[in-house]
Every structure is written in structure tokens, then in C-alpha cells.
């Protein structure tokens, strides 16, 4: 069966849902980070699929921006997470609640 645009979109929705669920239920900062990446790439998938469907280059351009920003975010975010883990091994995100109101 030839994959249609709809199947790409369904896959993207599934991936986004997995990412969002993971973000809400997991406590390991590294895993939560991966969930965010999953959500970002699910969105990328919808961009690419719809760009092909409508023969419009703009969707692919947006994907490039998302990837660049995601890369930058990974650099910063991973740096923060690693330095937290060094200082407090085994810390979960619930332990990092110093800024609560």
C-alpha cells in the first residue's frame, strides 16, 4: 500500500502524542528532553508531508528552521541537564523545584 499524506499525518500525531505523554509522566530530565525532541520532529513530519502534498517549498523551509533551533536548544539544554546531574546525581525534575512560588 502506497503511504498517503494522511498516513504521514497520523504517524506524526501518534509521535506527538507519545512525546507529550512522555513529557507529562516521566521524571528523568534526559528522557523528558528526548520527548520534546520527539514532539518537535513530529511537527517536522507534518510540515514535510503537507509541503509534498501541496507542492509548496515553504513547509520544508520551516523544517530547516525548526532543526536549527532544536540543535541550538539541545546544546544549551543538554549542557544544563549534564551540569545538574553532575552536581546532584539521580535528580528528577520534581527535585528541581526551587523557583516555585
Amino acid at each position, binding site marked *: 500500500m502506497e503511504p498517503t499524506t494522511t498516513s504521514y499525518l497520523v504517524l506524526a500525531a501518534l509521535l506527538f502524542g507519545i512525546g507529550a505523554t512522555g513529557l*507529562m509522566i516521566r521524571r528523568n530530565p534526559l528522557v523528558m528532553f528526548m520527548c520534546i525532541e520527539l514532539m518537535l520532529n513530529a511537527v517536522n513530519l507534518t510540515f514535510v508531508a503537507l509541503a509534498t502534498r501541496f507542492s509548496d517549498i515553504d513547509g520544508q523551509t520551516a523544517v530547516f528552521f525548526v532543526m536549527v533551533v532544536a540543535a541550538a536548544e539541545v546544546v544549551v539544554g543538554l549542557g544544563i541537564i549534564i551540569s545538574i546531574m553532575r552536581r546532584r546525581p539521580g535528580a528528577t*525534575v*520534581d527535585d528541581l523545584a526551587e*523557583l516555585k*512560588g
Partner: protein
Amino acid sequence: MLDVIWLVPALPLVGFLAILLFGRRLGEPGAGYVAAAAVLGAFVVTVGAFFDLLSLDEHHREHVSVLFSWVPVSSLQIDMALLADPLSITMALFVTGIGFLIHLFAIGYMHGDPKFSKFFLYLNLFVLSMLMLVLGENLLVTFLGWEGVGACSYFLISFWHTRESAATAGKKAFVTNRIGDWGVMLAMFLGFQAVGSVSYSALNGAAESGALASSTATGIALLLFVGAAGKSAQLPLYLWLPDAMEGPTPVSALIHAATMVTAGVFLMTRMNPVIAASADYAPQIIAWVGALTALFAATIAVAQHDIKKVLAYSTVSQLGYMFLAVGTGAYVAAVFHMVTHAFFKALMFLGSGSVIHGMHHEQDMRRMGALRTVMPITAGTFIIGWLAIAGVPPFAGFWSKDEILLFTLASSPVLYVIGLVTAVLTAFYMTRQVVMVFFGEARWESHADDHGAHGEFRPHESPPIMLFPLVVLAGLSVVGGVIQLPSFGIIPDGWRHRLEDWLHPVVEPGEAVIKGTAAYDAKSWLALLAIACAVLGIAAAIAVYAKGRAKPFEPELLARGWRYDETVSAFMGGPGRRAFDAVARFDSGVVDGAVTGTASGVRSVAERLRRGQTGFVRNYSAVVVAGVLGILIWFVIIRGVL
């Protein structure tokens, strides 16, 4: 000397600074001489300026000297500028001239005071402020001087501030004057709003050309009169002046008789076109307040025992005459009476100072008597002052009072009768004072025990430095009338209305206004009537106090000044105080409450909202997801977008 008119205020300023920096080193009597020399210098410059103005054509007798731009704020442009014209030079002449004489007197009077140099510091500051007041080219410069003289008056009334009564009197004067200052400030704002300038030429020009609306002119005139009533001690704000006698006597003579208290009259005269442009009731209010003050204060003076209190109430009464003149349009007469009053009232205050000095600080007239034997010069000069104020020709006071009464009759017979009754009372209480102090039997010997520290108590004549000013002022009180003699048959033409011709550019024609009225035609008879009144008052007082033909009529009510003071205190202490407390409560409760209530409301709401900031990332993400789901449900299911 017109080009260096700035020297007039600058010299007292230099004197002030010199005493400020080196006062303690100058000591006594050096500081006094420095101060007196500064004022004498100012006097000499003023005389020079006077002759310069005199040599000019009548319509060009006005010299504005701009020192610097003071308040340059877009449309509000106010210069620090001095105006030398006949009115301001007249004022400056007697401020510096009499000021110099009083400085000399004070050198003798303040002898031995531990704060000798500080006294002259304030005195020079006062002269500086007074000169700014009279020479100012706009209302703001005048107001600077106005506040300056007020502050100096406060310093000098409470000069002996360790005495509770002196400190209180100073505060009273200051607070009462603030009410007047409020009026002057509002008048200034109103003038600026209407004309866009506070300079006299602009305001008076607008009033003369009719550009100033009658209602605005009325507002300005009445607000200025509030200020004048405060500064010049008119009803209902007069009550600070009798208390101001707590200050040293030279201060009473300089500030509270000759110069500062006439500032209100000066201001009204300066703004006379505005008064002319205002509604008819504005000058009438001024005239009535003046007349009632004159009568009211004269009745109080009849029953006073303190030698200075009599003179103080007399000053209030005479200032009432000046406002009566202003209100009836007799500006020349007002200025004339201001000048002659400055001569004889300064003379009598200095004379009373000489008596107090000779009596070792005894002020109660019931303990004096027969002082003419021990203080002949003081007594002689004081008697000249008495004849002048009582209105006996040819002394100075007769001419000025007569002119005021003439204008009053032309405007209202009721006011004239009040003025005449006041004249009788004036002659009466001044005679009473002279008899009690200088004639009769010596009552001071019976109180010799009170002065045991001095050993044998004996009053003594004052030193020459105190007598010299008395003699000069006595001379001026005799001949002061020549500056404005009326147009009677026997007086040569060249001697008539000198002051009126001199003031003509500033003040609208004087006698022309009432020419042709019945009062003007009967002026010789009016003068005789005024003389009869003076003689009546004098004779009555001699009969009562010298001959003992009748028991003195001095009811308690009058001695306490109609209980006006007590009434004001009772009101301010009782209902007034409660009203102010209520206002304060309203302020702290409602006005402040609105502000603090807003702040505390925001705070308590924020207190609750911050609970939402849990610090748990998963919590936040759940909220975001819930929000996204909510938006999706809204668009897809409810709005049916897809």
C-alpha cells in the same frame, strides 16, 4: 544713579554677608556700625536715584533694570528686575532713611545683648527683603521680598526666643501671614493665567486697556487684599501685630510700624489700575475693612496698659486709615499717610524704646509717670509724635489724615463718620499715653523694691546715639506735611500737592476725582472739623487722666481686645480643631485608603496566584496540553472548523 539702582538692595546684602561671616569678630558695636553703614549707603544711592528721576520728564520717570532672567520656562518668563519709578523710590527712600535711623537707635538699645551681631544680621536681611519688595518689577520679585520680610519678622519677633511668649508670638505672626501669602500667590496665578505675565507693567497695562476682564480684575484685587490684610494687620488677620511687640523695640519701630506693615498698602497702590478695573464692590470691601479696622483697633488702644501695646493697636488703626484711603481711590493720600505715619510712629516706638530702656525694661504705663523730668529729650520728641498722630496742625499727621477724610466723605458719609470717630479716639488714647508716661506723679518710686538689684531705682535718659534718631524723626514729624499740602487759599501754589505731582505717572489723578463734589467744596470746614475732633479727644483725655475729672473708662472687654483673640483660640481649639481632625481622618482613611487599598488588594490576589507556580515542570506541561486540547475542542467540535 538710576543705572546702579541694583546697589540699593545690594548694599544691605553686603552688610548681611559681612555680618554673617565676620559677625562674631566684629562684635559690639562694630556689627551695628557695619549694618548701619550698609543701610546709609543704600539711602544715599536712593537719594541719587530720586534726583535722577526728578530731572527726567514726567512721562519717562520709570527705569527698569533687568539683572538676570530668573524663571525662563517657555511662556513663563520672569526676570529678576528692579523698577525705579516715583512710587518705588518714595518707598525706598523712607525704608532706607528711617531704617538707618533705627539701626543707629538699635546700637544703643541692644547694648550688652549677647546676640548683638545676630540682631543686626537679621535687621540687614530685613532691609534687603523690604527693598526687593518695593523695587520689584513684577509680582514674583515682590513676593520674594514679601516672604523675606515675613521670615525676618518671625526671626526678630522671637529674637529673645528663650522667652515662651516671644517664641509663641513669632509663630503666631508667621502662621497668620501664611494666610495672606496664600492670597498673594493665588492672585499671581490668576494674573498669569489671564495676562500671561506677572510683571506690573503687563498687568496694569492690561487693566488699563480693558483687556483684563472685570471679574478677573476683581479676583486679583480681592486676593491681593487678602495678602495685604495679612501683612498689614487688617481685620480679621490683625491679631498677630499686637503680639509682635514681644520683639525688641527697634524691631517694632522698623518692621511693625514704619515699613513692613505698609507693604500691603504699597501693593494695593502698585496695582491700582487693576482695582480700578474691578467691580465696584472690590474697593468698597477694602474701604470698609479699613474703616472698621481703624475704629476697632482704636477702641482697644483706649484700654491698654502696656506702652507698646497702645502703639501697636494704634498702628493697626492707622493702617486701617490707609486702606480706607485705598478703597476710596485716594492712593496719593494712602502713600502720604504711609510716609507721615512712618515718621511719627517710628518716632513714638523709638521713644517708647527709650522709655523702656530708661525704666530698665518696665513696660507697664501704670508704673511710669512724670518721666519728662528725667528724660526731657525723649519726652519732647514723643510729644511731637503725639501731636502729629492726634492730628494737630501743622504737624505731619494732620495733613495726611485730613486728606484721607476728605476723600472718604466724597465717597461715603458713613465711612467718614467712622473715620472721624476714630480720629477722636486716636487723639484720646495717645493723650492718655502721654499723660500716663510723662506727666502726673512719678509712680515708679513706689515700685523701687522690684528693682532691688539696681539699688536705688532711677530712670535715666538714653545715650546720644539713641536720642539722635529721635530728634531727626521729630523734625520730620513736624515738617513731613509739606510734601503734600492741600489747595487752601493761604498756601502758595508751588507748595501744593507735591506728592501728587510726583506720583502722578503711577497713580491716577488724585484730587481731580473728587473735584466738584460737595465734600471738596467744603474742605476748609472739614479741616476745621478734624481739628475740633483732635482737640476734643485731647481735652477729654486730659480731663480724665491729668485732672481726674472723671473715672477712666477702661472696661475689661476692651483691655482684652474685644476677646477677639480668645474667640479665635477657642474656635481653633474646639470646633476648628475637630473639623481639621475630621479632614485629617478623611485624608488618611479615604484618600490614603484608596491608594494603600489598591496596593494591598494586588498583593492579596498575587498571594493566591503564586500557589499556581508549583515548580514542577510536568505540572506546567500538563497545563499546556490541557490548554491545547481546550483550544482544539473549541475549534473542532464547538465551532466545527474541520
